[in-house]
C-alpha cells in the first residue's frame, strides 16, 4: 500500500519514466494520469466519477480564446516561410553589412528579430536563414560554429519577441493578459538582441578570423538598387509588424484577431510577391492543422495528468516543497529556473508549460512574485530548450537544412555560447525586474482605511429621489394584488 504522502512524488517520477519511453507525449501524459487515477480510486482517495471532470476540462481548453491564436500565428509563419520575405531581407542586409567584420552575423540577428516580431514560430526563421545565410557565411570563411550558432540563436529570438507562442501559452497558464505579457517581453527582447550583437562585436575584435568581412570582390556596389532591394524586403515586414503587434499593443485587436489579420496580411504579401499558389496555401493549412492538433493534445494529455495530480494532493506537495526553499523570492526563482533549464534538455517548451507551470504559478503568487515578470522570465529560460544540444529544435532544423560538410559537432558546440548568453539574460531579468515591469502598465491597489472622509456624492448631479405621500402609499397598498 502506498502511503498518502508518497503518491504525489511517485506520480511525478512515473511521469518522467512514461515520457522518456518515447511514446507520443500527449497520450503518455494521459496514460500516467489515468494509471494513477486507478490507484487513487483503489485507495479511496477519490471516486471514479472524479474522472468525469475530463470532458469538461477538454471543453475548457477548446473554448479558450487565447489558445485560438496558436493556429493563427502558426499559419502566418508557414505562409511567410514560403513567400520569400526572409530571403529578400537577408540578401539586402547581408550585402549592406557584408563589408564590415561580423556583418553577415549582424544581418542574421536583425532579420531574426524582424521575423520574430511578425511571427511566433522558430521553424520559419531557422530554415530560411539556414538555407540562405549559412552557405554565404561558410563560403567567405566564417567559423562554422559561429555561423551555425548565430543562425540557430537568432531563429529562437522569435520566442521572446512578441508575438510568441510561448508567451501566449504562459499567459494562459498563469491567468494573465497576453497583451501585458507581450508588453513585459519588450525589454528582455531588446536586451537579448543587444547581447547577441555585443557577442559578435567581441568576436570581431578578439577572433576576427571567425567573422571576416566580405572580400572586396564579393562586395556589391552600395547604390540605389541595393537600397531598393532592402526597402522592398523591409517595408512589407514593418507593415505586417504593425498589423499584428501594433494592433494588439494599441488595443485595436485582441491577440487572436491580431493573429488572424496577420495571417491575411501574410497571404496578401505572398500575393504581392507572386507566390500565392493553391499548393502553398494548402500546405500551410495542413501543417498548421497538424501542429495545432499536436500542441492542443499535449495540453489535453496534461490536463488528465493534472486532474489526478490534484486528486492526490500533488499541488499541496509541490507547494510545501517550494515554499520551504531558503532565500525567499530570489531563492525560489533561481531554483525554479535551474529546474526548468534542466527539464528543457529533454522536454520541449509546450510540455514544460503545460505540466510544470500550473504547479509553479500558485506558489509564485503566494510568494508575492509578479506573474508577468515570472512568465517572461520563464519564457526567456525556455528559449534555451530550442538550443540545448543535442535535442534542441533549432539545432534539429539547422541540421536538416545545413550542407553535409557542416559537422553535427560544429552545430552542437556552436550553440553553447548562445545558451550562455540566454542564461545571462535570465540572470539580468531575475535581478533587474524593471526590465520587464517598466513596459507593463500595472494597476495598483491602494486599499487605505485612513484619512478624512469625503462625501462621495459631493457636487455630483443626482437623480431626483421622490418619496410618495402617505396617501399615495395607502392607495398603492390597497390596489396591490
Amino acid at each position: 500500500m502506498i502511503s498518502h504522502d508518497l503518491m504525489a512524488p511517485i506520480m511525478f517520477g512515473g511521469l518522467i519514466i512514461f515520457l522518456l519511453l518515447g511514446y507520443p507525449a500527449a497520450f503518455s501524459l494521459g496514460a500516467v494520469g489515468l494509471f494513477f487515477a486507478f490507484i487513487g480510486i483503489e485507495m479511496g482517495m477519490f471516486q471514479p466519477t472524479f474522472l468525469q471532470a475530463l470532458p469538461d476540462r477538454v471543453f475548457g481548453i477548446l473554448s479558450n480564446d487565447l489558445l485560438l491564436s496558436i493556429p493563427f500565428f502558426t499559419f502566418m509563419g508557414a505562409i511567410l516561410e514560403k513567400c520569400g520575405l526572409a530571403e529578400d531581407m537577408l540578401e539586402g542586409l547581408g550585402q549592406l553589412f557584408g563589408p564590415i567584420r561580423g556583418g553577415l552575423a549582424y544581418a542574421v540577428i536583425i532579420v531574426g528579430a524582424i521575423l520574430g516580431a511578425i511571427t511566433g514560430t522558430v521553424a520559419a526563421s531557422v530554415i530560411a536563414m539556414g538555407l540562405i545565410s549559412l552557405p554565404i557565411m561558410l563560403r567567405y570563411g566564417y567559423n562554422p560554429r559561429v555561423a551555425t550558432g548565430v543562425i540557430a540563436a537568432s531563429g529562437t529570438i522569435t520566442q521572446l519577441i512578441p508575438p510568441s507562442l510561448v508567451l501566449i501559452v504562459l499567459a494562459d497558464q498563469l491567468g494573465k493578459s497576453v497583451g501585458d505579457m507581450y508588453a513585459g517581453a519588450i525589454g528582455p527582447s531588446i536586451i537579448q538582441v543587444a547581447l547577441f550583437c555585443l557577442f559578435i562585436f567581441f568576436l570581431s575584435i578578439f577572433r576576427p578570423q571567425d567573422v571576416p568581412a566580405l572580400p572586396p570582390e564579393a562586395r556589391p556596389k552600395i547604390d540605389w538598387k541595393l537600397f531598393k532591394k532592402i526597402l522592398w524586403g523591409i517595408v512589407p515586414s514593418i507593415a505586417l509588424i504593425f498589423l499584428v503587434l501594433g494592433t494588439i499593443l494599441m488595443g485595436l485587436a485582441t491577440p487572436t484577431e491580431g493573429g488572424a489579420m496577420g495571417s491575411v496580411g501574410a497571404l496578401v504579401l505572398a500575393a504581392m510577391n507572386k507566390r500565392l499558389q493553391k499548393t502553398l496555401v494548402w500546405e500551410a493549412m495542413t501543417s498548421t492543422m497538424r501542429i495545432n492538433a499536436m500542441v492542443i493534445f499535449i495540453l489535453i494529455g496534461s490536463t488528465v495528468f493534472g486532474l489526478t495530480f490534484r486528486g492526490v494532493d500533488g499541488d499541496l506537495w509541490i507547494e510545501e516543497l517550494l515554499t520551504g526553499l531558503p532565500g525567499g523570492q530570489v531563492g525560489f526563482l533561481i531554483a525554479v529556473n535551474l529546474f526548468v533549464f534542466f527539464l528543457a534538455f529533454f522536454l520541449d517548451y509546450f510540455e514544460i508549460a503545460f505540466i510544470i507551470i500550473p504547479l509553479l504559478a500558485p506558489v509564485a503568487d503566494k510568494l508575492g512574485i509578479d506573474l508577468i515578470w515570472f512568465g517572461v522570465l520563464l519564457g526567456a529560460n525556455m528559449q534555451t530548450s530550442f538550443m540545448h544540444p543535442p535535442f534542441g529544435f533549432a539545432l534539429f532544423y539547422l541540421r536538416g537544412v545545413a550542407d553535409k560538410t557542416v559537422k553535427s559537432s560544429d552545430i552542437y558546440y556552436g550553440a553553447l555560447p548562445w545558451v550562455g548568453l540566454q542564461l545571462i539574460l535570465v540572470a539580468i531579468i531575475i535581478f533587474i525586474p524593471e526590465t520587464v515591469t517598466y513596459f507593463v502598465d500595472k494597476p495598483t491597489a491602494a486599499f487605505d482605511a485612513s484619512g478624512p472622509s469625503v462625501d462621495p456624492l459631493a457636487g455630483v448631479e443626482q437623480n431626483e429621489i421622490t418619496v410618495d405621500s402617505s396617501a399615495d402609499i395607502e392607495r398603492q397598498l390597497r390596489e396591490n394584488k
Partner: protein
Amino acid sequence: MPKQFLVFASFVDRLNDRFGVLASWMVLIAVLVSTANALIRYGFNVSSNGWLEAQWYLFAGMVMFGAATTFRLNEHVRVDVLYAMYPNKFRLWLDFWGGIVFFLPVTIIIGYYSWEFFVTSVIQNETSSNPGGLIRWPVRGAITLGFFLLTLQGVSEIIKRYAAIIGMIQIDPKYERPLQ
C-alpha cells in the same frame, strides 16, 4: 492475422484523412471569420457573440477532427532522448504496446465520459450564456466524435504495427520532430 484487419485499418486511415481535410479547411475559415470579426467591429461598431463563438467552435473542430490523421502521420511529439536510439523493430513493439496500454485507455475513457456530457447538453438544449451566443451540443459532440475517431485510429495503428512486426507489411517507423 486475417487480411480483413488490414482492410479495416486502411478504411480507418482514409476516413480520418477526410476528417483531416475538413480540419485543415477550418484553419482558413477561422482566419477569415476572425479577421472579419475584427474589421467589422472597428469599421461598423457591430459585434456578435455568435460570430465570436464561431471562432472557437472552428478551433475545436480543427483539434478534434485533425488529431487522428496527425496521429497516423506520427506527428504527435515524442520525447526522443531514448527513442532516437531504439532499433526499428523495438519502435514497432513500443508503438504496438503503447497503443494498447497508453493510447486506447485514454481515448476510450475520455470519449466515454464525453458522451454523457454531450447527451446532457442535447437534453438541456444548452446554449451559450452570452446574449446571441450559439447552441452548445455541436461543439460537445465534436469532442465525443473526435475521441471516437482517435480510438479507431489507435486500433488501426495497432493492427499495422502488428502486421509489420510479423512481416505482413513494411512500415518505416522513422520519426521527425514536428515543426514549431
